[in-house]
């Protein structure tokens, strides 16, 4: 089963929700839709499901045009943010419900419900009712209903957002494993770049209803096509500074200057925006051509095992991601090292013109 969206527009009451989206999802693929709130993720999923018909364009399933076909006649399942279960049915019957509706035989239902429950580690809860379950268990039950019926397409709309982060960590990893054994197309919407990376597969970056880039998740992350994609697909956001290349010298904001290195030598003289990932800036020199910059701490946010350091100087504000716990007070001075060979460069229009050599270059 393949799923193709062809030049899709979707306009609701004069407001464009989706614009010119072309997307081809391969059979058995796991796909992440990454974008901020209101980027169009849910709308795109509703179009894929057939809950709405697009204003323009075609949707093809296995080559067949299903643009106007309603959700009832498409073999799709959906899992939502809210844990949606039948409160009057126990876990077993909740999971069994799509099969009962499809008039699957009793023995087959039993086999598939138990197999699905086992996969989701809720086999010991089959007699319980949804209200007797924790949030994580309720969402596992809802996922069980989506997974049990061998759908052609399974859509997950930020399914883990209402769970605490330890559960998210666990379920993400399981989802990964779950889909390697399946042949259906999975589409998973999230606002979190870290979640997209954890899930792997392919990622489509959406912004204001447009598709910025689609490809293998690690490839989109490491090789963004433009500045917007780089910004959307990084957490904390990639640091962007204005700069200039003139002959043998690179400067950031006309203040920080360093001799051009082999990495950037291929760029023509002119103005650029340079991108430096938060995790590539360090407290200790890593390479001879790192540049040393004095900054002032705004705040050190500690995530438990990592530290997000917000810093500024008179020119710009930056975020640095450090491994481990580093305690800083607001207004502490700090010396940071920027790796000149791990810098991205974007032209005036925002298109990427240089990708760090260790990531394969352009």
């Amino acid at each position, binding site marked *: 089963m393949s799923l193709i969206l062809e030049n899709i527009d979707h306009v609701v009451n004069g407001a464009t929700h989706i614009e010119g989206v072309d997307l081809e999802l391969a059979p058995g693929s796991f796909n992440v839709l990454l974008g901020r709130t209101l980027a169009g993720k849910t709308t795109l999923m509703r179009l894929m499901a057939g809950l709405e018909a697009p204003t323009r364009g075609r949707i093809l399933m296995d080559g067949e045009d299903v643009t106007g076909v309603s959700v009832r006649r498409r073999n799709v399942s959906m899992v939502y943010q809210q844990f949606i279960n039948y409160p009057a049915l126990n876990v077993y019957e909740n999971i069994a419900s799509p099969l009962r509706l499809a008039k699957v035989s009793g023995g087959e239902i039993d086999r598939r419900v138990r197999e699905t429950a086992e996969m989701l580690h809720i086999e010991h809860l089959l007699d319980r009712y949804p209200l007797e379950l924790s949030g994580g268990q309720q969402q596992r039950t809802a996922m069980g209903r989506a997974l049990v019926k061998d759908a052609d397409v399974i859509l997950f709309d930020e399914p883990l957002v209402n769970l605490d*982060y330890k559960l998210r960590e666990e379920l993400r990893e399981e989802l*990964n494993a779950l889909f390697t054994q399946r042949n259906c197309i999975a589409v998973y919407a999230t606002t979190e770049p870290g979640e997209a990376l954890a899930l792997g597969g392919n990622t489509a970056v959406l912004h204001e209803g447009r598709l910025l880039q689609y490809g293998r998740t690690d490839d989109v*992350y490491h090789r963004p096509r433009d500045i917007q994609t780089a910004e959307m697909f990084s957490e904390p956001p990639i640091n962007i500074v204005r700069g200039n290349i003139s002959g043998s010298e690179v400067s950031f904001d006309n203040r920080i200057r360093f001799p051009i290195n082999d990495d950037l030598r291929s760029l023509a003289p002119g103005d650029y925006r340079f991108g430096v990932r938060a995790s590539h800036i360090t407290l200790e020199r890593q390479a001879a051509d790192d540049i040393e910059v004095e900054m002032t701490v705004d705040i050190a946010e*500690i995530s438990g095992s*990592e530290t997000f350091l917000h810093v500024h100087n008179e020119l710009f504000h930056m975020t640095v991601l450090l491994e481990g716990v580093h305690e800083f007070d607001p207004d502490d001075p700090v010396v940071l090292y920027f790796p000149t060979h791990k810098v991205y460069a974007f032209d005036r229009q925002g298109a990427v013109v240089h990708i760090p050599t260790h990531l394969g270059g352009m």
Partner: protein
Amino acid sequence: MAEITLKTLAHSYLKTPTSDEDYAIREMNHVWEQGGAYALLGPSGCGKSTLLNIISGLLQPSSGEVLFDGERVNDLPPEQRNIAQVFQFPVIYDTMTVFDNLAFPLRNVGINEEKIREKVHEVADVLELTPQLKRKAKNLTADEKQKVSMGRGLVREDVSAILFDEPLTVIDPQLKWKLRRKLKEIHRRFNITMVYVTHDQLEASTFADKIAVMYEGQVVQFGTPRQLFEEPAHTFVGYFIGSPGMNFLDVQVRDGQLFSGNDVVPVRQRFCNIIADTHSDNIKLGIRPDFIEVHDTPVENGMEVEVVSAQDFGTYSVLSLRFGDVLLKARINEDQSTPKGKAFIRFPQERIGMYVDEYRVEINHE
């Protein structure tokens, strides 16, 4: 301003509790020192809200005492405890201006208008609310409203402590760090005891100098963010702090060596000695994914593992490694290539924690 002491405090929602499990708060002694920035961190259902309500006076504890600067306050109603609270959702008067909202707690106790004006302007200045003072509160953004909520706690000079209950829940992710900074600034400037209740390790570690981690009605560790990460005192802290959490291996000592299942874990002799002295059979070795060394080829004191999977997080990867019957997580950074099939790991000795009955045993590495 006050030091808050909890003395042999316990609470059960049941009339006749019989076992430990019947207690939302198991008997504890705890001191929040005057002027400290603290967090109370734990998953939902751990007892942190119960504890907060006992401190603020909304709930009477089953036993034990709450002391403010050494004075028993158990019998004082909330309004006489001079505790300011900031909740998840802003609590402000929508129809009043920002100025009147901030002035409200002062007018209530009959402070003169001139003094009120001075105090309101001081607090508005710190919170960067001066431009909004004349605006009606209902026209403010969520983060501005939450700042007004905080301001109402800060204007009173008689406040003993400020309790924050998940105060950033409604704030946009992009704005959160700014409010976190603001909170730290406020703490430094006003020298008030602050207790920040949350389930989020980032909120807790960013705000607090010291964090009390709660689990099943108990404070299982009271330490700095660095201590929670590097030396978790309880297996729950190891699991809950850090992403992914700490690895734990069930271990035994046989013939002077440490075993996980049938596999030897090379460790210094003193680890074995300590375990040999305990009578418990619940012994775990803890090591953070961040500290495990991963090699492609055999290393001295290494262990052979099978690489089950690798999650690429862009600038680092998390490997799942099978060692005997257990799955271990190890974090390697992007400069290191991801091993395939087989790998060899080593635990830096000073990064190992030994846990007996879930609590860490102190080991002198000298």
